[in-house]
């Protein structure tokens, strides 16, 4: 993923450095919510029509577009299945996690 931030733990040493509101505290770089998933979306790119609907609907921003095709970020995909439900060409399958 092109713009993926390198994980770097933000630790404020003093309350003076803490922003007023909890803002961009960087916690999600370490809290990989993809581990919650029990079914995973798998895209059959041969049937993908590049409409971008899965990218638009993903509530966790866990789909990005690379070389004009969607790619799933399994570090953060929770397996909700919205992409598979919305895909007009039905090329996303929800497959049981066996690991």
């Amino acid at each position, binding site marked *: 993923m092109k713009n993926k931030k390198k994980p770097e733990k933000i*630790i404020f040493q003093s*309350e003076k450095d*803490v*922003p*007023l509101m*909890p*803002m961009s*505290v960087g*916690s999600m770089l370490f809290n990989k919510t993809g581990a919650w998933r029990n079914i995973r979306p798998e895209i059959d790119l041969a049937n993908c029509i590049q409409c971008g609907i899965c990218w638009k609907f993903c509530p966790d921003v866990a789909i990005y577009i690379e070389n004009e095709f969607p790619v799933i970020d399994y570090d953060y995909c929770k397996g909700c299945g919205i992409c598979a439900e919305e895909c007009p060409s039905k090329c996303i399958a929800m497959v049981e996690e066996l690991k």
Partner: protein
Amino acid sequence: MKKVIMGNHALSWGAQLARAQVIAAYPITPQTQVVELLSEMCASKTLDAKFIKVESEHSAMAACLGASLAGARTFTATSAQGLTLMHELLHWASGGRMPVVMGNINRAMAPGWSIWTDQNDSLSQRDTGWIQFYCASNQEVLDTVIQAFKVSEQLLIPSMVVLDAFALSHTYEVVDIPDQAKVDAYLPRFNPPVRLTPSDPHAFGGLTSPEHYFEFRYKLQKDMEKAPALIEETGREYEKMFGRYLGLVEDYLCEDADLILVTSGTAGYTARVGVDLLRKEGVKAGNLRIKVFRPFPFEKVRQVVAGAKKVAVVDRNISYGHHGIFYQEVKSALYGADHDVPVFGFITGLGGRDVTPDTFKEVAGLTMAKSRPEEEITWIGVKK
């Protein structure tokens, strides 16, 4: 310009003069006219604001928070069941430092189903981190909305402007509507230090580990502690421009008073009539009306009661298993003070039962009859 308006419309006028930019509200008796007039103001373009219709008070506050985070001056109003439905979002507003201003009409909580006034709805929101102003006249409601935006936006802490159901919300009074240009000079545009914007993306309110959560709360409290001085400063500035001082408390004949009756909301002005009657009978009584409940004006309360022999707190609310809520606060303000004064606690007027000048005469008689309180709650007006 002077107009005869109801308390609810004083809230709407305050929001219009403050040039609120986003309003999201859900109607509920006895608040409905606030929203009705605001929607008319938006439709007729006298107020250039986005009016967002929502399906609940929870959503109303959520919409306000999004708008506030995007940098818009945001107003809403509610009452009782609506306010308590918002409860979760009230914590989001203060914790996220979003300076929304909200009118709340004090209405008794159900059951029994009630539309009449008491203060348990807003006082149940005590620990949500909102500034709370309790008003006693329609003029004060309008002025306080404008001041609340100024205070809230400087501290990035939301404010609640509270008024009694019917006793104020539906009562018509003469109100001086300030000149728009002067209000603009008093209240500059809202310009938050950070905001939701595509050019500088941030995640707001995300997972915050024990490593940092504590510091966010420390900072909120530290800024809340700045509010009393800022309220007095902005109140004096308001007086200079509009001729009306907006402070933390209002005291009436307290300087030489032996007995001080402590009140809040419209009961404060009723208490003044009671004080006048008592003075005619030779009782040196005074009234301390607490206007700001959070942050609690500890210093002011200590100063005002310093010379008194007895203090009687009249609460239109109750903390079940404890006492009247203002009574608790006044006692805690006086703990450790140089001057040891007995504080008596009275509960009256729940669910809209009338509080009259005679209520205060009865309170004064009961307080003067004893050297120290023998019970934590004395009930006034229970049918026995």
